[in-house]
């Protein structure tokens, strides 16, 4: 090392997003984003994620040994993408003996919009006319999740949206149209198509400071959907 000889004392976090279209790596020191590399694309995570990690560490002149923790976008999302992210995170965490901090991908989608007057619903396509969702609100400058992480059928969405609600997340155009038909109170946030590494790392930093670490051996992606039935 390196550019910053104090980074061992700093809280240096590596963020990994592979739950959906965004394939991203970011790095922060003491809650300040140093750099991020991300692209949107299907089936690129297996090729790019490790390369991005190496590249970003190299460019900010930080060694793997200098990392304090790894912040994982935990899903829900793509089964394959999440497994790639978890494999990479666990490999680095084992090697460097650092903790993994899991952050719900829904939380990141909502948080990255910044403070809003209306409530925010983060949505990820669960297919088969269902969505994964959670609802958030900013109260006295604090970002709060006000519902559980859940799955709902699209036709039942109007029961959840009783007031003007800003909808964000990984929402294909077709799904957006369906939601729009169900609820006139759903307002779509159209500017964001990529999960923000800065927001992932900020949420991860909060959990890191609180010591909310995941068990390295047991942690697994937050798929939400249960597969248990015998066929």
């Amino acid at each position: 090392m390196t550019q910053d000889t104090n980074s061992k004392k700093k809280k240096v976090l590596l963020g990994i997003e592979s739950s959906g279209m965004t394939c991203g790596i970011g790095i922060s020191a003491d809650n300040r984003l140093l750099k991020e590399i991300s692209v949107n694309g299907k089936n690129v995570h297996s090729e790019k994620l490790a390369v991005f990690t190496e590249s970003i560490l190299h460019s900010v002149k930080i060694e793997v040994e200098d990392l304090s923790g790894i912040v994982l976008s935990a899903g829900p999302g793509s089964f394959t993408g999440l497994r790639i992210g978890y494999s990479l995170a666990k490999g680095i965490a084992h090697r460097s003996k650092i903790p993994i901090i899991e952050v719900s991908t829904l939380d990141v989608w909502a948080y990255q919009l910044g403070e809003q007057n209306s409530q925010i619903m983060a949505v990820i396509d669960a297919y088969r006319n269902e969505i994964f969702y959670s609802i958030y609100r900013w109260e006295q400058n604090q970002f709060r999740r006000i519902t559980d992480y859940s799955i709902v059928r699209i036709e039942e969405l109007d029961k959840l949206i009783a007031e003007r609600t800003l909808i964000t997340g990984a929402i294909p155009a077709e799904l957006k149209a369906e939601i729009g038909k169900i609820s006139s109170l759903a307002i779509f946030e159209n500017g964001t198509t990529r999960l923000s590494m800065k927001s992932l790392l900020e949420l991860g930093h909060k959990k890191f400071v609180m010591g909310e670490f995941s068990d390295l051996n047991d942690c697994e992606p937050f798929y939400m959907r249960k597969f248990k039935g015998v066929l």
Partner: protein
Amino acid sequence: MILKQTFLKNSKEKLTLNSPEETASFARDLSKQLEPGAVVAFYGELGSGKTFMIKQICAEMETIENATSPSFTLINEYHTPQQVSIYHFDFYRLKNDSELANLGIDDFLYGDNICLVEWADKIQKFLPQKRYDIFIKFIEDKPEARQIEIYNHYSQ
């Protein structure tokens, strides 16, 4: 052409295929309808010709690999010269839907690939609404012939 030109507009079509050659011809016609993202679900008893039909589709699409039955592996992947991946599933031996979880089934069925699914009745609740359903039935006293029913859920 065995599959009628109007097929794309129809939601249902019934055909009698009198020989393996006609079945092959039908599969070639069908392959022309398949774009990236397409899902084709095949239903039929053992030996009814599901794998045969898929082999014909892959041959028509000039896959680099030869299609073979993935009875034990659950899934085979083939590639076309146009860089489209074709996933060939055989769920005959599927016992529990946790196996589907470990396969990451949604990533396949809702991706940009072509999915050809044998024994689709085993994963009915996981199939996307937009798909082709193809039912293949034996015809009594005509071992070479097959009755085919096609449901085009893309047209709905």
